[in-house]
């Protein structure tokens, strides 16, 4: 087996000979190395300072507390703030997470370390009354979302028609919109409607973060 260093000197790894692959791999290595060294430095310093003052039993208590402070959540369980809302035709969920967050939901499947915010809009399963277009537009404009208890709805495996996400930190995405790695800040608004949907979907978000949405399966002919 070759030593690791020989791979670093391999010709295909040279950015001069192969710009795209070389740059891509090198940048990724630099980033991972940098993050890894920061984590190591912090953990070494934390270890040294804690060991100077505490016994092993005290450390066993302190470590879980640090873990709690950094936070961890899986979907709607753990250190996350999840709220549910509804209007006449749709449901909305807002979620804020600090620390580690794993999502297994189809729309935003992935692992995030940092701060994440999610707003998702789901259509209601039941078919609402057919309205003419102008009435439906009025309904959406005046129909604000009202907060409800999580026990009142079961979104189950429903897929959102739209979602807005803001992530800060390190993200590993594995969802249909994105598969890959991100580090930094990202914001995204996505509409994703199934091909068999026949109707109208309206969504708007203003500068204060107020979201309005409406789903109408079919419109009344005018």
């Amino acid at each position, binding site marked *: 087996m070759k030593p690791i260093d020989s791979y670093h000197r391999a010709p295909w790894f040279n950015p001069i000979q192969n710009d795209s692959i070389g740059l891509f791999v090198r940048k990724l290595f630099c980033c991972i190395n940098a993050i890894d060294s920061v984590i190591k430095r912090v953990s070494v310093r934390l270890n040294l300072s804690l060991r100077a003052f505490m016994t092993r039993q005290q450390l066993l208590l302190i470590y879980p507390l640090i873990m709690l402070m950094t936070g961890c959540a899986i979907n709607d369980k753990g250190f996350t703030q999840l709220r549910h809302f509804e209007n006449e035709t749709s449901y909305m969920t807002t979620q804020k997470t600090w620390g580690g967050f794993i999502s297994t939901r189809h729309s935003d499947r992935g692992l995030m370390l940092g701060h994440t915010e999610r707003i998702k809009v789901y259509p209601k399963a039941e078919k609402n009354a057919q309205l003419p277009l102008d009435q439906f*537009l009025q309904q959406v*404009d005046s129909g604000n979302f009202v907060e409800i208890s999580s026990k009142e709805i079961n979104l189950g495996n429903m897929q959102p028609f739209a979602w807005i996400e803001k992530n800060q930190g390190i993200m590993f995405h594995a969802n*249909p919109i994105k598969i890959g790695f991100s580090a930094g*800040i990202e914001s995204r608004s996505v*509409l994703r409607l199934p091909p068999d949907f026949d109707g109208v979907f309206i969504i708007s978000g203003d500068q204060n973060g107020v979201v309005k949405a409406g789903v109408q399966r079919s419109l009344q002919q005018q």
Partner: protein
Amino acid sequence: MKILLLKLGFICLLLSGCQATHLVYVHGTTMGLEVAASTETATGRLVFGYDRETFALIPRKKDKQESDAMSLAAISCIYAQGLDDVQFKHFVSTGETAKNIVKHPDTIIDIRKSIQGGSESCLPSGNGAGNTGKGKEESENTIKKEG
């Protein structure tokens, strides 16, 4: 090396075989490092710095007897200033509803006015038309696709 090439080949094969299965509209901003691919768009990208992207995908129909893509009438208005202030308005109609809407051009104008709060401009109130300063981006799209 061989394993790496095999993996890359497999990923390329997976991506090239993918087609849009849903109607998709994405507006996203990235600041930092991103190495990503998408099964929906069958594209890969590497970003180091700042990037903003907006794209829409209309799925093809398997049965191409009547048309090759799904029927769609949509109006989208995105106003973005920096990373935090993103305002958006979307009206998306599909299927028979979209076909009925595009038959009446006046209806589209009414819808546009309505979702923009009675205004002719996509810009939010308090920002006059043409006041697109540095760092601001306005994107207005009207898609009419009758299948």
